[in-house]
């Protein structure tokens, strides 16, 4: 049986990337994987609906972190998608028999080991399968403290979940990873891509503009949707921001951790300052979430109101604009 280094992490995709690389001998922390993969993002896309609620995302599209990490020199990743359930499971068994741990994209709804309260139709979950015992697969799910088990039938269902972002049995594994990695150019590249998305998008619904757009829309929710529905929308925003798999504060804390680690790796005090500034932005996101939750619960304090939340979001937008402008300047000075 394979000896797989299971490390619990805050986010599934970066956690899987870090664990797989560590297994292949390249020690990488989760936050570093998140940063190198350019994982941070903001997007408010009301024309895409999830259970009738607008899509809000605080991180890059599912699969981007892995794709960017696979593009690093010396890393070789094989990725496969399937149409047929049996073929997908057979391929998984074969790869496991060659003692290669396999990453899978799955839906959350059909995984029996997930707590009931978190079972929604969300299809961009990632996990690593590292063995099979009888009919059970041994799974290292990065969000859980210890490895878990899952019956084959449930795993097959989860791999072929339908709906938005359907995984289609996607599996991936590393065939090769470099011994050591010169982090510097990859850090700069990762930060550059995030700055581009956050600041320079021509599309007004993403990046810092997206935060302001959300603030504007949010102020009109009580009139447009009525109080009940507005509270539902608000709860959805907070769930996307804070629920398991975000590391808190809509990934802002995780990205700060990455900046801090990079600052240490590159001896760069400016990154340290940016990390501190982004932490403040994350705290403001949390302030917003706490206020929103109080309104959802109808236990609002006197100072809680929709205009106050709008003001809070605008502050987030302004802070992040400042941080990413500073980071963009920094990347431009890099070779």
């Amino acid at each position, binding site marked *: 049986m394979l000896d797989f280094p299971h490390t619990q992490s805050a986010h599934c995709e970066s956690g899987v990337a870090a664990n797989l690389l560590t297994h292949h001998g390249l020690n990488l922390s989760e936050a570093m994987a998140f940063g190198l993969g350019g994982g941070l993002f903001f997007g408010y896309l009301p024309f895409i609906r999830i*259970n009738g609620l607008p899509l809000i995302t605080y991180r890059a599209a599912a699969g981007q972190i892995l794709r960017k990490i696979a593009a690093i020199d010396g890393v070789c990743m094989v990725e496969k998608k399937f149409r047929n359930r049996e073929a997908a499971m057979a391929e998984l068994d074969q790869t496991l028999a060659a003692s290669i741990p396999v990453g899978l994209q799955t839906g959350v709804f059909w995984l029996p080991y997930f707590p009931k309260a*978190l079972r929604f139709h969300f299809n961009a979950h990632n996990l690593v399968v590292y063995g099979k015992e009888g009919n059970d697969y041994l799974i290292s799910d990065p969000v859980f403290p210890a490895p878990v088990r899952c019956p084959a039938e449930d795993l097959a269902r989860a791999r072929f979940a339908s*709906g938005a972002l359907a995984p289609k049995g996607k599996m991936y594994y590393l065939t090769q990873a470099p011994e050591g990695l010169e982090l510097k150019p990859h850090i700069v590249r990762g930060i550059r891509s995030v700055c581009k998305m956050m600041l320079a998008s021509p599309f007004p619904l993403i990046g810092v503009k997206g935060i302001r757009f959300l603030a504007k829309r949010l102020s009109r929710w009580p009139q447009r949707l009525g109080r009940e529905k507005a*509270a539902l929308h608000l709860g959805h925003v907070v769930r996307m921001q804070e629920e*398991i798999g975000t590391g808190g504060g809509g990934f802002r804390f995780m990205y700060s951790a990455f900046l801090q680690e990079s600052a240490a790796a590159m001896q760069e005090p400016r990154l340290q300052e940016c990390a501190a500034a982004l932490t403040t932005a994350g705290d403001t996101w949390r302030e917003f979430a*706490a206020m929103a939750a109080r309104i*959802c619960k109808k236990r609002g304090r006197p100072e809680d109101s929709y205009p106050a939340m709008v003001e809070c979001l605008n502050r987030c937008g302004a802070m992040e604009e400042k941080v990413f402008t500073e980071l963009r300047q920094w990347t431009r000075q890099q070779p």
Partner: protein
Amino acid sequence: MELPDHSSAGELTDGLKIVCYAVNGKGEYALTPDFVWQPVHVVNHQAWQEIEKNIAASKDKIAAGRASCLHYYMTANQMDPGLLAQYTDQPRWKVCLHLLPFIFNRLSAKTLQKYAELYRISPDDLTQGRLQPLIPNHE
């Protein structure tokens, strides 16, 4: 950020401990084992209340004879006709028709089997119109 308070800890995740990024005493980030943040419970609870409300509404509809029992299973599994159609490889309009009692009662055994397999119930439950309680953790 400051570590959140631990009231009602673990209720959401069945006692599962998660990790999150928090600043330690020296101002450095560290992965800290932690419970789920309190406001997350509130919004998660809100989402489930909405689902339960939908289930109750669906039961009323079935009792009034305006929907087939497939409607209950669909709602209880947080699906809509579109998603159910994808899971069962059928066009959406067909699933919509199957939600009507008149058409549902005339479904072939094969189609019923498809639905029964998806929801892990027996085809009899569907033909008899029994509403099994939902067991997401089917231990």
